[in-house]
């Protein structure tokens, strides 16, 4: 993560003095954007840079669902399974994804291309069902739209 330190310094300058602890989440997010997950050496680097206890970083990583300690597929498909999406057919969407990809939620295709997850409400209830691909929202999904979307993930 050393090459990110100039970026972290810019982040730091935006916070009031004494807010170093606050940088844990934004720094981890930036690290994960680069590497796809947060590795041991990233934690070592962040402990040294921010001066926060290692346990604080470990706690944050294990608490928030978006952080990952291990690599995933190049494309991360996350399908909402909460109330409004369920009422609009998300169970069918998830089943269709599982069949099309030959994996269950929480798994990655053998070629390392796609990881499938189910997630809770993404505030896209009016355009349900929703899936995200690497964070980008794809709304009002149907099985046909899923097929078209999967075809673009090469």
């Amino acid at each position, binding site marked *: 993560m050393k090459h990110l330190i100039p970026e972290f310094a810019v982040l730091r300058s935006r916070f009031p003095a004494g807010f170093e602890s606050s940088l844990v989440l934004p720094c981890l997010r930036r690290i994960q954007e680069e590497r796809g997950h947060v590795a041991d050496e990233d934690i070592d680097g962040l402990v040294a840079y921010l001066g926060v206890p290692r346990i604080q970083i470990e*706690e944050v990583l294990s*608490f*928030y669902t978006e952080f990952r300690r291990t690599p995933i597929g190049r494309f991360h498909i996350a399908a909402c399974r*909460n109330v409004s999406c369920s009422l609009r057919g998300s169970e069918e969407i998830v089943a269709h994804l599982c069949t099309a990809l030959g994996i269950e939620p929480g798994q990655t295709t053998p070629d390392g291309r796609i990881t499938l997850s189910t*997630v809770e409400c993404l505030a896209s209830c009016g355009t349900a069902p929703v899936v995200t691909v690497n964070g980008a929202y794809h709304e009002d999904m149907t099985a046909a739209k899923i097929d078209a979307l999967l075809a673009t993930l090469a």
Partner: protein
Amino acid sequence: MPNARLLMTFPVTATSHTLAEYRARGGYGALEKALRQMTPQQVTAEVNASGIQGRGGAAFPMGRKWGVIHPNDGQPHYLCANADEGEPGTFKDRWILENAPHLLLESIVIAAYALEVRHAFVYIRGEFDLPYRRLAGALEEAYAAGYLGADILGTGFACDIVVYRGGGSYVCGEASALITSIEGKRGYPRNRPPRLTVRGLYQRPTVVNNVETLSNIAWIVDHGGDAFSKVGTPKNPGTRLISISGHINKPGVYEIEAGYPWARFIYEDCGGMQNRLGLKGVIPGGISTKVLTGAEIESLHFDSQEMEAAGSSLGSGGTIAIADGTCMVRLLQVMLRFYHHESCGQCTPCREGMGWLHRIIDRIVDGQGRSEDIERLYSISRLNDGTTICGMGDAAGYATSGILNKFRGEFEYYIEHKRSQFDGRLACPKSS
């Protein structure tokens, strides 16, 4: 009846969110007025006069929250806009963030002026991609135009805003968890007292207001708190952004003046139910508010007191319409899986209780339900009530007892016959 518009006052286009268009709509005029013509005390007085209540779910009067902040007390004050919109069914703040981010920024700067805040934060949920990019873009525009920074509009007033992204956690929408998250830690809610307005972010006095609540400030400063208080009903001043989803023909975000009839909203504004089905029930304000039957909601209005008398609440404005033929047992299963997943684990009744509720509903759905399970769901719901640091345990209890109260027969049927009365359907049934 007329339906006033205070926030959704313009047609949404691909460029509605830009500074140029916001200015063309009169944007940042309220900030000019506040900084050049009003004292911080006068701004606070207008907010007090408006009577505005929080739009995040708890409906706490904004003026009373602000009133705890003492001017000139020799310590920094912080302001946090809660953009961690995560209550299932709620997507109204997203509308503001995507289409009117400058309205939020302008309102934050005005609030910061009133509250003697030098550093304000917007805590935005980590999954919000476009809303974050729109807000971050607007922030850059606002700095470049002199609406933020060390000398705003040449008046000498200084304010910086940091946009802080969450990491995926429902409980961080709770104000004290949100603050703890901004401190770079797990989003654990905190015990009160002390209130956050006494000891909040880094132990300093902190105001946390919902995005929609804050976004009304520009209008209040423009037109006066008195004018605001005359919109809606005396006890429910202003409008509410209602996000409606589920088995409804025209889901989306609507601005509704307090006092508006629900029946007209659902059947006229929202085009009624999919496939012309009957309205089985409505979850009025996010899944943590108690479900009402279609017959109940049809006679009610958008009025906190009326909703409360009916045993529910307008909550966060996240309305979910449910059609006849939907399986309420499986719907509760979806909810309880969610609450179980999101319990932060600090308090034993919630950490254990959410797991119990989830396992019991799973076993009912698997055809393994026992005759005592309905009473057990009730008793665990009560166990959570008021015994936890934050309201999440209570919320799961409201959701559970709400559905059991109205649709108990479906649960009895499921347990007795080991199958759903409605084929386990959640997606909209076809019309018969």
